[in-house]
């Protein structure tokens, strides 16, 4: 059983991670993100694959840190969808999209 403090910490860290992702992917523009989402292209995976190896290492370290705290990629992805209401219907309605997104993130965290 986790303590209240731990749960609170996980909550805030999930929000912070989602904010960071939102801030980054918004640079590409909502229209482009909608196009990718409607065509079933994983936004997170595309972003991660496009980053430099150095950036990828930093992000991998941060995500693994979140995992160690109990913050899972599903939690972050749900938070991102909640913070971006324009994309949320697309991401939530497409069950395969969400699953493919989580698989890509998992592969990325494993260093694949």
């Amino acid at each position, binding site marked *: 059983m986790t303590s209240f403090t731990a749960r609170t910490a996980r909550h805030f860290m999930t929000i912070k991670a989602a904010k960071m992702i939102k801030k980054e992917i918004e640079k590409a523009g909502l229209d482009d993100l909608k196009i990718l989402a409607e065509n079933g292209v*994983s936004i997170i995976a595309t972003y991660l694959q496009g*980053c430099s190896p150095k950036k990828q290492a930093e992000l991998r370290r941060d995500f693994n840190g979140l995992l160690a705290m109990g913050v899972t990629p599903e939690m972050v992805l749900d938070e991102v969808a909640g913070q971006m209401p324009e994309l949320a219907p697309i991401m939530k309605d497409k069950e395969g999209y969400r699953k493919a997104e989580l698989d890509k993130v998992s592969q990325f965290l494993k260093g694949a």
Partner: protein
Amino acid sequence: MASQTELLKALHGKEGPTNTADLAKELKTSQDTIRALISKLKKKAFVDGDAKEGWYITDAGIKPLGAGESIPTTIKDVGKDELSMFKYYGQLAGAEPDDIAAAAELFQNSDMRSMAEVARVLAEVNVPMTSRTKWINLYRGYLRNTTLPEIRDELYPLPTPEERRVPVGEGAGVEEVTRGERLDYIVEGNEIHRVGDGLGEFTFRQALQVVAAKRGSVPKAEGDGGLTGALSAFAEALKNVGPSQPLTIQDVINIINTMKENQSNPGEASVPGYVDEDGEWHELKPGQPVILKRSAAPPSSGGGSVLVIKQTPEGIVTEEHKPGEPIIINSSPPPAGNTPGMMPMMPFPVIGGDGKPVVDQDGRPVYANIQPMLEWLKFQGEQRRSDQRHEALIGLAQTVRENLGDGVQALKAAAQEFQKGGVSTAAKQGSPQTYECGTCHTQFALPQGAKADQVKCPGCGAIYTKEQLEGGS
């Protein structure tokens, strides 16, 4: 010590040439002595040969041996310097070899062109007067011959007839006067000077005896011996000075009387006094202090300058500094690699069109200063390397910039690909997984909103389960 005659005899008995070492061994002397004797005999053509083949006696050398003659020492056997001539004249005068050696030992430390020194040395060695007079006259002749005619008579005057040796006694003839009886000489310090006919204080003999007495060869008279005792001691001492010419007591009395007569005031000598810088004599009263002043050394004029030699880029420069002036020494220039200045030029001879070094009017080789050219080439090389390095860095940065990924740019690129109708590689990577039908080979993806447990091929309608899809993918 072997003589020339002994060496000739040794060579005469040999059938062939004999080397120097064998001669030295036979005559029981050093090889240097043999070489000296050989050199003298060779000059007289008595021997011939060389050091390699050996020495042999010539017909000219056999003749004096056959006649029983001894090889005399000639002028050719001695050097031309004063000391050699002095010794040679001693031999000619018939002096004993020991006296010659002793006189030469004293003479070489004195003024060898002073007749007074000659007389003093011979008197000190106690050379018999017969030989001494010959010796002095021979040496005087040598000095006169080696002196300019204008000053010859002034420096080395010939003895007057009165001064020439005349026998004054009978029988053995040992009692003789070498100089005139006139008072022509004075004694200054330990030196005897001839001041003119009858103008001096002593005869030459008296002067010699006075000098000998001054040199300490005369023992002091006993404290209470009185004048007679002192004179007797003095006479005994003078006998030692000239044993072959003993002095009579009358001679000694004459000497003392002469000294007394020449002293204007007998008591004056006992009065203490001193001579000032101007040469004036001052009497000192008992208890009167004498103040001695250390006179400062006069400043040297002209000759005390200091020469400083410097190595400059223009060459070696000599500077003259006067005494007392500070000498500023510049620190050595820093290494040329750290300064933009000129490096010391290295000698680089100028080669003419004919391939030979170019020389100046004095015949010295001409060197070219190629330092500016070297500096310019060095600057050009550095500039070229700097430009190449800059270009390489720019190219590397461009390559890095082109190859470094940007997630946002990837998203934009993928969106643009979809807008154009295609699918980018990144988009393909991010797209949902597709499957291929094993029957009709139709590519299909999981339908959106459908259950993933069963999938129907859009081409042939075959149904695949989840396990089948995961296992076949």
